[in-house]
């Protein structure tokens, strides 16, 4: 019906519950949310491609948005000029938050000062069975980390990754990594900053390490669905999502990093500029998805 926007999102329920009432208040539109796993969003959108039901896709990994740009309608929100341009990849979607990749450490098992600080240290065989990671063939973030390693070590990339992988235990999803670390199933885990932050704030014995020889930061994005039932509403939503007040709320209350240059990072996190951010090379540079996955399988010994 009029005035209602259908939003597919991979945002956590708690975030949705915090933010959406604001949207409805501010715009007078009604939001109808379908919350899904990040990979399910596009499966759903693609199945419905004949008669799309969604207007907006909200907070989904940038690489996925790019991959499915045929389903998206390019739209530049009002405040586009405030967006940190390092995160802009494709005109079909707009960066919405930045995701920083970190190492989470269980401080009961491994005091923070003894924890590795670099990828190079992580490769050490003494960490065998101590590093939780999601699977690169399932999780986009694990793939990001793989790409990071490959980028950091250059030609030696696959060798190093193979050594690193022999220290891994795999979790079923990237979301489960910090939980494994917090529970003590393993002492370290490769995860996302905001995920780990939640545990730290929740009082888990956990510390966060930003690896000094290369930390990746990638955008999550928001985009308009091509042929959606209420494109105007969708655009309003994107404008709202990129607005300064929303982005501030996101950073302050929720702990995610804004892509706006005029919004500071969440409390207790280093500034982006203080991190050794590297520009992660795209998959294409390593031979494309299939080849990377094949090499990855060899690397993890499957």
């Amino acid at each position, binding site marked *: 019906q009029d005035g209602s926007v*259908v939003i597919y999102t991979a945002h*956590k*329920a*708690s975030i949705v*519950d915090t933010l959406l009432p604001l949207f409805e208040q501010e715009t007078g539109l009604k939001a*109808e*949310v*379908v*919350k*899904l*796993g*990040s*990979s*399910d969003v596009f*499966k*759903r959108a693609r*199945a*419905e491609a*004949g*008669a799309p*039901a969604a207007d907006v896709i909200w907070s989904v*990994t940038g*690489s*996925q948005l790019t*991959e499915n740009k045929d389903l998206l309608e390019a739209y530049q929100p009002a405040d586009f000029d405030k967006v940190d341009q390092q995160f802009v990849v494709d005109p079909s979607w707009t960066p919405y938050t930045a995701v920083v990749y970190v190492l989470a450490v269980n401080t009961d098992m491994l005091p923070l000062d003894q924890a590795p600080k670099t990828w190079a240290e992580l490769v050490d065989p003494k960490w065998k069975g101590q590093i939780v990671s999601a699977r*690169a*063939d*399932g*999780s*986009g973030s694990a*793939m990001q980390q793989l790409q990071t390693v490959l980028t950091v070590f250059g030609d030696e990339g696959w060798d190093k990754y193979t050594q690193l992988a022999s220290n891994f*235990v*795999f*979790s*079923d*999803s990237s*979301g*489960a990594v*910090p*939980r494994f670390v*917090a*529970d*003590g*199933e*393993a002492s370290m885990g490769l995860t996302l900053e905001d*995920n780990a932050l*939640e*545990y730290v*704030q*929740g*009082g*888990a014995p956990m510390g966060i390490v930003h690896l000094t020889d290369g930390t990746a930061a990638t955008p999550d994005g928001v985009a308009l669905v091509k042929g959606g039932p209420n494109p105007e509403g969708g655009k309003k939503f994107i404008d709202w999502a990129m607005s300064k007040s929303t982005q501030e709320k996101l950073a302050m209350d929720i702990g995610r990093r804004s892509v706006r240059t005029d919004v500071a990072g969440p409390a207790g996190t280093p500034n982006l500029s203080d991190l050794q951010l590297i520009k992660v090379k795209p*998959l294409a540079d390593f031979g494309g*998805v299939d080849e*990377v*996955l094949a090499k990855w*399988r060899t690397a*993890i*010994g*499957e």
Partner: protein
Amino acid sequence: MPRFNFWTLVLIFTWLLLLGLLFVPVGSVLVSSLYDNAGNFTFANYAKALGDERIRRAFFNTLLVGFGGLAGALILGSVMAFCVSRFQIAGGRFVSLLAIMALVSPPFIGAYSWIVLFGSAGVARSALKTIGINIPTIYGLSGILIVFSLKFYPYVYLMVSGALSNVNRSLEEAAEGLGLTPFQRAMKISFPLVLPALSAGGLLALIHAIADFGTPRLLGRGFNVLATEAFTLYSAEIGSNMSMATTISVILVLMSMIFVLLQRYMSRRNVYHGNMINKPHKIRLRGWKNVLAHVAVYGIGLAGAIPVIVAVIYSFRKTSGPVFQPGFALQSYERIVFGLGDVVTNSLTFSVASVVLIVIVGTLIGCLVARRTTLNTSILDGALMVPYVMPGIVIGIAFIAAFNTGPVVLTGTALIIILSIFIRRLPYTVRTTSSALRQIGPNMEEAAISLGYSPFRAFMKVTVPLIVPGIIAGAMLSFVTAINELSSSLVLYVGRTMTMPVRIYLLILDGDFGTAAALSTILLLLSGTAVYIAFRFLGRNEQALL
């Protein structure tokens, strides 16, 4: 002849149903495995799958966990069924309830609970370590097999205990009189006689074991099976490969179909009608035997319910964000109160509606299949096994594709979810009904017919009352699985039609275990209440549920 007409109508109706709700939608999805990304017809996906060393290993691993899980489920399920149906077990109903509850183990919470207890830093494992007992972690093949056994034994238990309590008592007594110990007697007489039920229960366990990806994914630590492969290919954020995922699903489905047909072939030759009059007594055991039986029954029941118990306990733990803190609180419940009414109502209405449909349609089809054996009904019976073995997510996707546009638009409605649950769970009731029917000799119906009842009325008056316990047990199983249905509704839900399992799943994705546990506990409570009502309903015949 009127009977011909009636059953012919049922037959035609069933075929239409399958056509509309299954073959057309699902067929188009499956056919996609025969096209490459460019849209050309090819067998390349299959060639690739078969040629891939990794998939071959997954294939054997699948068989390994499938049959390992099957063996475990058969042992646990039959031991429990035998004890409960032959011995007086204090609180027998409670045990049945435990078994049913084990089926209500909400998605993903199950395996996680095992890690909480027996992972590297597992609570139970650590506790044991402090008293000097070192047990291995739950990870790896043996862990998967243990969890599968405990997860799927209720299927065997529910089917077998029903059949066991219908075995003609004289047969067992005859064997005992001939000098067989009770154990030998069980092996040589009781179990062969309930083989159809045993194999039906075993089949359910087997199919679920080979289709389950959550457990191997969480506990496998590198141990891959076809289901995890398919799931990974399907759900990968990067490099997802729908047609390959579908290809593997098809392989999985074909494999399951083979087992289905095998089971049908096996049990077709073994149809023994129970004697509904001379039912077995329950013996009161004494001394150590009594203790042993109780330990076995409660041991299995409680072990199977561990995930549920852990979930309940964790739902009351104090949390801070996703992190559990010492002490107990109702925080998790407070957090789900918002919008709880809607999901509860949705879950209840969807599952009740689909169960009502399932019971009516399923009973009719079950009778058709069991009593009118023609080539047509045999094929129908086989075809009905397709939704039985079809991954829910495939059905969900297929439904969206089929009902999003075109003549019937259903996406976003409650009906589409109800129909998807209906078609997925229909085979259960068909199975339970037809296996209950096969226990009843045709002579009762013949007696009624000779007294002037048309076959249909004879059936309603004599056979149906006799299989009502079976139907109710089947309905309960359907209800419990329907209210827990996740994989297809996850694809089909919209904001208005969110159900509890969907919400639980999403909470788990968010890592919000406490809240998920709270919602699971409520789900458990609802399922438990339904089961309890069913118990009350069958009040004077508690055997019925066993």
